[in-house]
């Protein structure tokens, strides 16, 4: 009886959220930094590759295989970087942050654009600029939390 009344009320009652939204409040630009570093590393490796001598079929196959893998990883990691940045941008950052950092939207927009540029091109310059953009976001992110977290790269 009571449980029927409960069900009837529960059906009509609007929701009040006590949600764990997304990854439970755990955000860290380190994930974008790591994938961004992978993009820069692959970009440099592609640029450093030396094509084999003409007529050496085995060397040519190995070269194409290595090049394809580098390109595939660069493509994948650039997309992951973009995804990580968009999560920070749309989920972590809130309007009060924008008041304090008026160029926040522009920073994220340019960083996301650089992810695309790193896919389309093999540009060491754009890979460097992507890392600079992620470093800037790292600085803003930790400043909003009142913490001084040093920017440290995995690649030496």
């Amino acid at each position, binding site marked *: 009886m009571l449980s029927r009344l409960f069900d009837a009320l529960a059906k009509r009652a609007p929701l009040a959220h006590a949600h764990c*939204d997304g990854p439970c409040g755990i955000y860290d630009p380190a994930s974008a930094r790591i994938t961004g570093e992978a993009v820069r590393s692959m970009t440099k490796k592609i640029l450093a590759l030396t094509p084999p001598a003409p007529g050496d079929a085995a060397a040519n196959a190995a070269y194409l295989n290595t090049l394809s893998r580098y390109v595939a990883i660069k493509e994948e990691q650039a997309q992951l970087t973009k995804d990580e940045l968009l999560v920070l941008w749309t989920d972590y950052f809130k309007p009060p942050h924008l008041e304090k950092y008026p160029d926040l939207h522009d920073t994220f927009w340019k960083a996301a654009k650089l992810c695309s540029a790193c896919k389309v091109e093999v540009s060491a310059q754009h890979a460097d600029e992507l890392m600079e953009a992620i470093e800037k976001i790292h600085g803003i992110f930790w400043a909003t939390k009142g913490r001084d977290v040093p920017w440290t790269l995995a690649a030496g």
Partner: protein
Amino acid sequence: MDPRGRLSSLPFQLHRVAGESMLPTLRPGDLVLSRRPWRRRLPPLGRLVVVRDPDGSGRVLVKRVVALGARGFSVGSDAPDHARDSRRFGELAPSALLGLVVAVWPRPGSRG
């Protein structure tokens, strides 16, 4: 129910809890009855409250008042590592307060 909708003048409102951030106090599916605040007064510290999510989504949240400030109040979750609350969105203005929880009806079968 839109908090600004036609039922907004009723002194009491009923909400159904979604999510687990208020465990163990509130479980998903529990009903919470809240009364509207009298004026734009700050809620008492420690009180369960129904608030409007400041993200502009119109979503309603149920939380606990964990701090009172000069101009607003902060809310937290009873399961603090799992939620969206003032650690994420900062202090709330008194106008975000939709109700003070006066009764909780646990979902039948959800306890013991």
